[in-house]
């Protein structure tokens, strides 16, 4: 221990505030990405070719361009279209759009993983289309895609670091500022590194607990990663 670490102690409130901001943006963007992902997945399974094309175009454009560029286009480009957003909402929207595209692929695979025979059986039993989707398909698809969704939540958390490029004072942005004030590169970034590890582990732990309670039979998660954020890599499908 030396003076350098003590200097950083004075910045603890700022780090905490930044951590809270990171968590907020992560969760808001996650909600947005779930909605967009589900809509795009349904659109990609639509009988109408035009709707399928729109969904496909959205997914391909997002998946084949860097997320940093998407953040820049939302933050610097949208004002030209008359929509000026602050860094906070630009970040939420850009990350939500990004992860939504990846999630739509996951959701689509999940929906298609439900055997067709079940849909036919439900139809014969007199369920309506909407009912079949919400009562038969969605619960089973949710279980199949849950581990993958949690992985994307963690990716999203780590992705918020890029919002420092549009001057959002989240963890990385705050670290850069403290860095230029104190010049304690190694110490500052060590603090942030640990902060990300803690956040990613806490989020995946909560997700694991939720998974065990939400599904029947419980989604048993093999606790693989005690360190990085990806505790839910494989879940058994009992």
């Amino acid at each position, binding site marked *: 221990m030396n003076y350098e670490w003590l200097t950083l102690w004075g910045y603890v409130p700022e780090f905490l505030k930044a951590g809270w901001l990171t968590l907020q943006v992560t969760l808001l963007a996650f909600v947005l990405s779930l909605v967009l992902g589900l809509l795009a997945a349904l659109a990609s399974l639509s009988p109408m070719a035009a709707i399928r094309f729109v969904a496909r175009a959205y997914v*391909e*454009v997002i*998946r*084949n*361009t*860097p*997320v*940093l*560029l998407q953040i*820049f*286009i939302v933050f*610097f*480009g949208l004002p*030209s*279209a008359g929509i000026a957003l602050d860094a906070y909402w630009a970040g939420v929207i850009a990350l939500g759009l990004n992860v939504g595209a990846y999630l739509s*692929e*996951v959701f689509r*695979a*999940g929906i298609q*993983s439900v055997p067709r025979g079940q849909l036919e059986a439900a139809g014969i039993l007199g369920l309506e289309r909407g009912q079949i989707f919400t009562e038969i398909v969605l619960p089973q698809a949710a279980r*199949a*895609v849950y*581990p*993958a969704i949690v*992985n994307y939540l*963690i990716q999203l958390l*780590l*992705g918020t*670091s*890029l919002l*420092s*490029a549009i001057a959002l004072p989240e963890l*990385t942005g705050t*670290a*850069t500022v403290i*860095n230029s004030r104190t*010049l304690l*590169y*190694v110490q500052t*970034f060590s603090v*942030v*590194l640990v902060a*990300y*590890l803690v956040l*990613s*582990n806490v989020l995946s732990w909560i997700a694991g607990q939720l998974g065990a309670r939400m599904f029947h039979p419980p989604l048993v998660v093999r606790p693989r*990663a*005690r*360190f*990085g*954020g*990806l505790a839910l*890599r*494989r879940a058994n499908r009992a």
Partner: protein
Amino acid sequence: MSFELLRTSLSILLQGLVTTLLLSVASIVGGTLIGLFAAVLRSFGPWGTDRIARLYTELFRGTPVLITLMFIYFGVSYFGYAIDVFAAGVIGLSVYQGAYIAEVFRAGIEAVPKGQWEVSQILGLSRTQAFAFVVLPQTGRIVLPPLIGQYLSLIKDTSIVSMIGMSELMHGGQAIVDRIGKPVEIYGLVALIYFVVCFPLSQWVRHHDRRRLS
């Protein structure tokens, strides 16, 4: 956007693309070597090296690539040495993606049936020989689609190296916007260039990757 402007912008961006591609290729080579090494250690490493390999993969999978890059670039100068931003980018991306690539290889190694090892042993091959000539070649079919997928995200991640000051494609776009404005047109053009590079790869992965859910 005038034709003249388009022409100058495009020439700056294409220069950036060359750097982006160089950065990508160097990091792909580095990341694959590191990933393969970490996967082998994790599966067969003696004296606790498997744990170190695991720590490595979990550490980098739980932290953002930007932090890795800043750590390397600013950290080295903190200790009084200078590091070229290109070198910092290659090292950072290789080490970071190596952690993901290690998981890809590990899945491939685990997918080869145990019997293959036993047969190789009976035929008189050493463990190293069995791995290099029997197991590794068979992992190709399983490993290749997710591996290419990982390369794809590496290529996109090179844009993040612009944040430590590397002048590649993304940085070129920023420089033009700083000078003349027109963010929609310029960033749209940058996006188009990335798309042209990435789309063929992602289509290949889409057609070959069967494990879509994970």
